[in-house]
Every structure is written in C-alpha cells, then in structure tokens.
C-alpha cells in the first residue's frame, strides 16, 4: 500500500476547490500520485456542479485513498462540511480551513499520509477569525513543533520548477529593510537547510548552490555597495569550508540565463523579487512552492486564492498539478 498525499482545503471561496477538481480530472494525463483531500465533499460538489465538472467522490480513510483514487476523488471521512460562495470569503469558514491543515500534518505525523500539499489560503480572512501566524509556512513550522515536539524549525521557502529553483533568503519584508536583515548567519543558515533538503529530499548527491549578490553587479568590488564583500562572501566561504558546494556572490542579472543555470541546482537570492522575477519569467504556470526545513514534505502552488476569478472555471491547475507531482517525487526520493 502506498500512502496518499494529503491535499488541504485551502480558502474554500478561492480557486482551490476548482483546481482540486481539475487536477483530479487530469490525474491520468498528468500522471498524478494518489491524493486525498482533507475536506468535506459538499463544497467541492457544489463547485463541480456549478462548473459542470463530472467528478465522483468517495469518503475514505487515508488507507483507502489509493484504491479509490482511480475512479473517484477521495475526501477524508470526518471532515466538516461548509457552504460558501466562490469569490465571497467568510471568516466563518476559517476554523475549517485551519483544521484541514492541522489534519493533514497530523496524518503525516501518524504515518498515514506521505506528504502535505496545500491549497492557497487568504490570510486576511483567517486574521478576521483570530489567526495569529504571519503566514501559511510559519503556521506549518508551528504545527511541526506541536506534532513532533522540540523547537519550532526554521522553514525555508523554495520556488521550484523544472527550469529553475530559487530560495529567497529574505522574503516578505520591505525592500528598504533587506540590507539590515541580511546577515552572514541568516544566509549560512538558509543555505545549510537548502543543501540538506536538496540532498535528502531531492536526492542530489552534492547540490550546487549559487548565491546572488545583493547589489547591482554584486557590488562591483564595493563601488556599488559593501554588503556583497562584507556579508555574502563570508557566508559563501563558511559554506565552502563546511563542504557545501556554494559559489557567489554572483551578479543577479547574469545568473539566470540557460548557460548560467547549467552551473547550479538552486539559486539563493537575497530578497523576494530577485528570486521571483526570474522564476516567474521562466516558469510562470509551473512554479511550485516547496517548504524546506520542516520534518515533513510540503508543497503548494505558487499563486494565491484569486477571488476575482473563483467559480468561473478559468483558473489553471498547472501549478497545483506540478505541486502534487513534486510532492510525489520527493516522497519517493525521501523514502528510498
């Protein structure tokens, strides 16, 4: 028996339910590993009806998901039912959205599911209901501590595609704060987690890390900023001394074309858009968000809830499909 992936509900008024249905319908064409949705069936059924999608459901325990997956979309028994209009989110559903995440992580902890794939959530909706975590990833780190014990792990966000993988060292912070937040320690810490998970989860014997410079032309010897020599370069030297295959700081504008990409497996970028601009340009629909540093595998599509198009049937499931496939692949590598 293969344990299924478990897919969370996400924001039920967003495009998550629609993408879930479309991903299942494309299971054979995309070669998807079996997954079960940690959600009730009624909301999914309502969206399927609205969009005219013929999706049969089965209410299962995780152990039965694989057998059911070929002919029906497995939803986990015991999940609470909700009813919400696409595009019209309600804080009343927040506890169910959060409960779905909790259940997914718990099932992985219990060994009943192999990995967590999350649908997008809307933080603003959850905040109205009293959710206090900065974001999805931070919440998963908190759940890791809850279910595995010990200190909360440092979660590292990686955006992965077949053409490029990037890790932003600083993420959702104002650009003006980046230089002060960027420390040698933070870079080294991020790179160590990346290196370890690239080995253990992605199966690379010796992952090649390329670190970008913070400043234009990686500072051009100090003429365009001191941080590249004072902060980034020492991090690269520490990593190299530990045996990590790391190079940098590289000028960010010349490290992403095909010839340059052939020299590394993952690029560590110093701030959000330095990482997001190239991956969106190279893999707009196929980018997957992978969380490194957690005691379990977690992937998600790299887009949001898209309330503006929810329920219209136009949302593309490419990124969710890529996330499900990658979770399956990482599971195989990790468990082999």
């Amino acid at each position, binding site marked *: 028996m293969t344990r299924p992936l478990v897919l969370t509900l996400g924001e039920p008024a967003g495009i998550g339910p629609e993408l879930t249905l479309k991903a299942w319908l494309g299971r054979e064409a995309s070669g998807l590993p079996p997954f079960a949705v940690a959600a009730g069936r009624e909301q999914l059924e309502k969206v399927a009806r609205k969009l005219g999608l013929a999706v049969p459901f089965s209410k299962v325990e995780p152990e039965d998901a694989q057998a059911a997956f070929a002919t029906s979309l497995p939803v986990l028994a015991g999940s609470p039912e909700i009813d919400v209009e696409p595009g019209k989110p309600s804080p009343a559903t927040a506890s169910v959205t959060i409960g779905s995440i909790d259940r997914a992580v718990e099932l992985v902890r219990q060994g009943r599911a192999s990995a967590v794939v999350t649908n997008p959530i809307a933080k603003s909706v959850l905040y109205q209901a009293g959710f206090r975590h900065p974001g999805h990833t931070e919440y998963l780190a908190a759940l890791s501590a809850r279910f595995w014990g010990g200190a909360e792990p440092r979660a590292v966000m990686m955006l992965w595609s077949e053409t490029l993988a990037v890790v932003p060292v600083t993420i*959702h*912070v104002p*650009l003006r704060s980046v230089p002060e937040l960027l420390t040698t320690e933070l870079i080294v810490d991020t790179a160590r987690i990346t290196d370890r998970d690239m080995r253990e989860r992605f199966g690379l014997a010796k992952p090649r890390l390329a670190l970008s410079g913070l400043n234009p*032309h990686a500072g051009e010897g100090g003429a365009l*900023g001191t*941080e590249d020599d004072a902060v980034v370069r020492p991090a690269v030297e520490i990593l190299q001394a530990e045996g990590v295959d790391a190079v940098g700081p590289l000028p*960010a504008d010349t490290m992403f*074309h095909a010839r340059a990409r052939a020299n590394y497996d993952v690029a560590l970028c110093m701030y959000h858009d330095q990482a997001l*601009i190239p991956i*969106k340009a190279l893999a707009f629909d196929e980018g997957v968000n992978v969380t490194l540093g957690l005691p379990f595998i977690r992937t998600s599509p790299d887009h949001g809830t898209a309330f503006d198009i929810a329920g219209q049937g136009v949302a593309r499931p490419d990124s969710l499909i890529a996330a499900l496939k990658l979770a399956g692949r990482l599971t195989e590598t990790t468990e082999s």
Partner: protein
Amino acid sequence: MSATLATPRPTIAFAMGDPAGISPELAAKLLALSEVRESADIVVFGDRRILDEGARVAGVDPAIETVDEAQLAASPRGRSVFVDLENLAVEDVTPKEATLAGGQFATGNFRKALQLAAAGRADAVFFTPFNKKAMRLAYPNYDDEIRFINDVLGRSGPASEFNVLGQLWNARVTSHIPLSGVAAAITREAILRSLTLADRAMRDAGFQRPRIAVAGLNPHAGDDGNFGREEIDVIEPAVAEAASRGIVCEGPFPSDTVFLRAKAGVFDAVLTMYHDQGQIAMKLMGFDRGVTLLGGFPFPICTPAHGTAYDIAGQGIANIGASREAILLAARMGREARMRAAA
C-alpha cells in the same frame, strides 16, 4: 508624397569602442551588413588599422571610404566614411586587457562622434562596447557614459539609460547605486522625471502614445502596505501626477509579473525602481539582443547592452544581434528626428 521624400536619410556618428575585446570585430561586421548601410549614412571614428584587424578576425569586408578629419569637415552629408584618427596601432593593443591606450582610443572616438552630432552633422550616435575600467584610466572622471556625454556636451540636464528589447523598453528610476540607497532615492520627483524622460524618448523613437507600466518597489508591490509603504506614499501619487500631465502610465505593479504583462503587449515599457528589477527580466527575455539607449540628450545614443566580452575576443564568433538592433534603432530615431525637423 512618396516614401523617399517622407523619410529623410539619417546620419549616424559611429564610435569604435574598446579595442581589446569584441568591439573591432563587431564594428567590421556591422559595416559589412547591407541592412545597416542602407539604413543610414555612417561616419565612423577610429583607426583604420583597428577596423581592418577586426575585419580580418570576423572574415568580412567592410567596404568604406577612408578620410581624415579635414576631408570630413569639407565634405557634405550624404555618404558613409571612415574617419581615420590614426589613434591606435594594432601592435599597441593588449588583447583582452583594460588599458590606458584602449581607454584613450575609445574616449577619443566617442568624443569626436558626440561632437559631430552636437554640431548638427549627425542625427544619432552609436558605439561598440566600452570597458569601464579602461575608460576610467583614460578619463578619471568617468562614472558612466551619461557623465562623460554631459562633460563633452557641456550640459547637465536630466538624462537616462533605457534598455530596449524589440518593441519593449525598460526605463529605470535608479540604477548603479547600492541597494541600501534605493528606497531613499525613490521620490515622487525622481519617478516623475523618469516617466517624463521615458515618454519623450519613446515618442522620439516613433511611439505615438507610449504606454508605461510602473513597477512597485516592494514584494507584491507592498501588498497594501504590509511589506512597505512606498507604493502608497510615493509611487501611486507620482503615477497619478504623470497621468494628469498626459503620460500614459499605470501602476505600481508587482515586479515579478509586470514584465510578463508588458511582453504580452499590454505595455510598451516598464519603469523599474532599481537595477536588478529590470535587468534580470530584460536579460532573461533577450540576453543576446538587448540595446542600451541613452536618452535625454539633444540626439539619441545607442549601443549594445552587452560588454566587451574579453573571453571570446579575437575568435570571430561574437554575436552581432544586439549591435545590429542598436544601430538600427539609432537609424530609426535619427530618421524620426529629421522628419520632425522637416515638419
């Protein structure tokens, strides 16, 4: 009105760049392209020996008449000539190295080309790549091309560098400054100035109504103020002000998707806030085709976006694509300028 009457033939002042890299081969290859020769009359400044060496390496024959400066001064517009300044012998070139001699050659050629255009005898300037270190050896005040041009022309008005990839333009508010200085440099005035310059330069290049997308500064364009307030406090008001002055612009947009929208044809240009925000996207979309335009001067100045490529110099394998795009843009803008002057 026939096409020939409607489209006057422009003259391009062409400066040979750094002699130690691919510039001589590029110059020879360009001058051998009929498409380039048909687009404009070209007045090249350099040393004939360096051009001939470039032609030998590239395996081309850039048939062009050689004159000296006195002959140039005495001759009318209307033909392509090579003005031999006799300013560098082949044996004085140190291949693949930035040298004082190389910098003196490039700055000398560039100065003459700028002066020809400033005198009204050329409509646009083009140069093959410079090496910044060599330029500094020859001209210690050399910060960048803009500073040098201002010095030669004796002016100090606003000017800016634009990157051009086919029909897509990238203008920037800040460029070669440390990232830590970017946020403070993003002011309403700076954005307005950049939008005004971009609008002007694009109209000069033939856009009737250039549509400019303005990038945000912060992740997700600040996410309604959650990741920074510059979008709300600075960029939005600047865009509104520019729009009220008749510039077709929108934004701020998240910078990780704004180029995709522009590339899809929704906009003609993206105004970026800092160097890598524009350069990462532009280089990914066309590493070998990018053109740099220096705008805001009395005449357009174009060059390929890439550098001197010391690593592949002398092999004859340098890609001509970006240089070709750059000189054709110079020709197009020069023609527009002549048409405006005639109107």
